[in-house]
């Protein structure tokens, strides 16, 4: 420290305080986030990891028994493995069924809203309305639409001359219905993100393209989409994370006794399975093992995403 050569002790103290302040303050200001994260993010994560190595009941956490990796081996090959693999498969199919159409529709909507339209501001605000609706309310309405007893979906099918469908009982029909809820809720949100990115695309590019004789479809394909590439990647990542953690919609879709994702577990996702094991069967250890498996799955997805992003950057 060179401050010991300062003119007076008082000034040295001030300089030190100033230094300490300019270095320390940023840490202090970000501290609340990290403290809260440690308490509500990191601690539960580590505690869940610890629990996943125990046989422990929800009603008596105090008396847990160390069983090593048995919760994991049970999950992958033991008695509950059938339900685990089924839930994993459902999570993937439900994720694909909801994420892909959701992002494509959002891109199309954003492109349309980017034009000069009458009532554009209103339409843009209206896009967010489904996102602002609670999961419970949206799912309740969709469950009524797809109800076998006088639901609107079957009524429409009837008008078109098709027989009634028991939406909840079938694997694909139930997943289609749930994917529709997810798509409905999140399309507007993604469209707004795309719209914001589209407005940052310089107008000259479109003018140049127009002079070259490109129609609107070609402009969209050759100007808009390449410019939006990082944004699209971002929404893909966020939607994938959301799809992996899908819980509310399939859980509530089952109605009053809606746990385990249908009588044949036909729409049970990993999130629902985790809830079911932890809170219905009181097996906290196994539920924790599912939580950690989901966490590992997300890390894996993150890795894949980074690799793709790197490829894309190189391709440019």
């Amino acid at each position, binding site marked *: 420290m060179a401050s010991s050569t300062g003119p007076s002790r008082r000034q040295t103290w001030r300089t030190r305080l100033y230094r300490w302040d300019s270095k320390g303050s940023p840490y202090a200001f970000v501290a609340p986030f990290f403290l809260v994260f440690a308490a509500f993010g990191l601690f539960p994560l580590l505690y869940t990891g610890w629990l996943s190595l125990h046989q422990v009941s929800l009603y008596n956490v105090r008396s847990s028994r160390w069983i090593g990796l048995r919760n994991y081996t049970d999950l992958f090959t033991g008695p509950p493995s059938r*339900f685990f693999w089924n839930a994993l498969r459902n999570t993937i199919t439900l994720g694909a069924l909801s994420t892909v159409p959701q992002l494509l529709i959002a891109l199309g909507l954003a492109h349309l809203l980017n034009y000069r339209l009458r009532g554009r501001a209103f339409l843009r605000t209206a896009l967010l309305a489904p996102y602002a609706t609670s999961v419970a309310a949206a799912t309740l309405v969709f469950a009524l639409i797809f109800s076998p007893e006088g639901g609107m979906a079957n009524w429409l099918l009837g008008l078109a001359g098709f027989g009634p469908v028991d939406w909840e009982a079938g694997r694909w029909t139930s997943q289609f219905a749930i994917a529709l809820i997810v798509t409905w809720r999140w399309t507007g949100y993604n469209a707004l993100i795309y719209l914001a990115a589209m407005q940052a695309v310089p107008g000259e590019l479109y003018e140049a393209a127009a002079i070259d004789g490109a129609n609107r479809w070609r402009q969209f394909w050759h100007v808009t989409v390449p410019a939006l590439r990082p944004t699209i990647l971002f929404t893909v990542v966020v939607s994938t994370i959301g799809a992996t953690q899908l819980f509310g919609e399939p859980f509530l879709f089952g109605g009053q006794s809606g746990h385990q994702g249908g009588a044949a577990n036909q729409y049970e996702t990993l999130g629902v399975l985790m809830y079911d094991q932890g809170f219905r069967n009181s097996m906290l250890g196994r539920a924790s093992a599912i939580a950690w498996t989901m966490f590992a799955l997300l890390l894996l997805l993150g890795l894949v995403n980074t690799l793709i992003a790197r490829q894309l950057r190189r391709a440019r």
Partner: protein
Amino acid sequence: MNLPGTRPRRSALLTAGALAGSLLLLTACSSSGGGGSDSPDGGKTTLTVGDFGTFGYKEAGLFDAYMAAHPDITIKEDTTTAEADYWTALQTHLSAGGGLDDVQALEVGRIALATSDALSGDFADLGKAPGVDKSAYLPWKWQQATTADGRTIGLGTDVGPMAICYRQDLFQAAGLPSDPAAVSALWAGDWSKYVAVGAEFQAKAPKGTYFMDTATGLFNAVVSSAGTQYYQGGKLAYKDSPSVKSGWELAMRADAAGLSQGLKEFDTPWQTAFARSSFATTVCPSWQQANIQKFSGPANSGKWNIAQAPAAGNWGGSFLAVPASGKHTAAAEALVAWLTAPEQQAKVFQAVGNIPSNQGAYALPAVTGFKNPYIGPDAATGQIFSAAAKAIQPAEIGPHSGDLQNDFSNGILLVEQNHKSAADAWSTTVQQIDSSVQ
């Protein structure tokens, strides 16, 4: 005014403030977890009663009566519709040691777990509470809530003796007898006769109507009326249980013959089906009367009637327990003893149809003379249920009895709704049980 010396000091203060603030935030979060169940407003004690479904205390005016007789006590009911949700929350609260009500209801499917070593210590011993008369309760009901070392952690509220509720008009339309005594005689003594009557009904039934709401009700009724159910000698023995086997076979037979509408019990379509009059019978534990009236609505008043079940069985019934960690355990015990006394149980029975577990109540004219103005006004409803209650065979209940009942109901739904084969559904059910019982 920005002197060189002032800035650092002020922001050092800010820094300290930010740190202190975040610490405060953390401690505030951790200290708010305690159970804030009572508030001493003006020297009054507030007792909270946690229950599920319809316990009938409010309907029978019992809380108001108790508060009038004890001016220093305020009672708040904390009620949940679905028992499964209620139990999940209760387990979490017991484990965390906070958020518990002064009185907590326990369903019979959970009582074996509540009396086990793992949980019984969390509840007060009500066997020694003042004003409790052990001999008044049905002996098997008392025994169910008693631990191995003789502590009684719950006092019986209602029991669930079963009858069969049936639609008089639909029976007439199908050319079957419709008088309660004649209908009881049709299937007396054997559940398979009930299925046989169903086949007769279905042959001449009005279009679009079914004999029963769901075969899960039939399965459950068969198991519930047997002395051996899911457990034997403290161990899961459902695979060799005769009642599980015959219940499953009868349910499959009923489904194959198209007698069942295949509804999921308590779910919304089940509720609407009552109003649409699409099925003719439902297994009717006493507490089901309230559901029938609620969902069938005034338009169907007088169309339901009630007959004896082929065999006496018990479905449901609850207990009231007092968590030992409560702040007012003595006041809570006194309330529980009063609520489960014969007079009060008889009043609940009259209000919502829950059959008392207190034998003293069976002699009261309120019970023996009871007739349900909505369901079969001429049927001797009170006598049907109290006779069934006395005829119930005590059965061993295990910690997972309630879960197994759910798993089997789900297994039958696999056949009814998802059109799986009986063998497929059985093996899925066994897998589900193997994976959920550790």
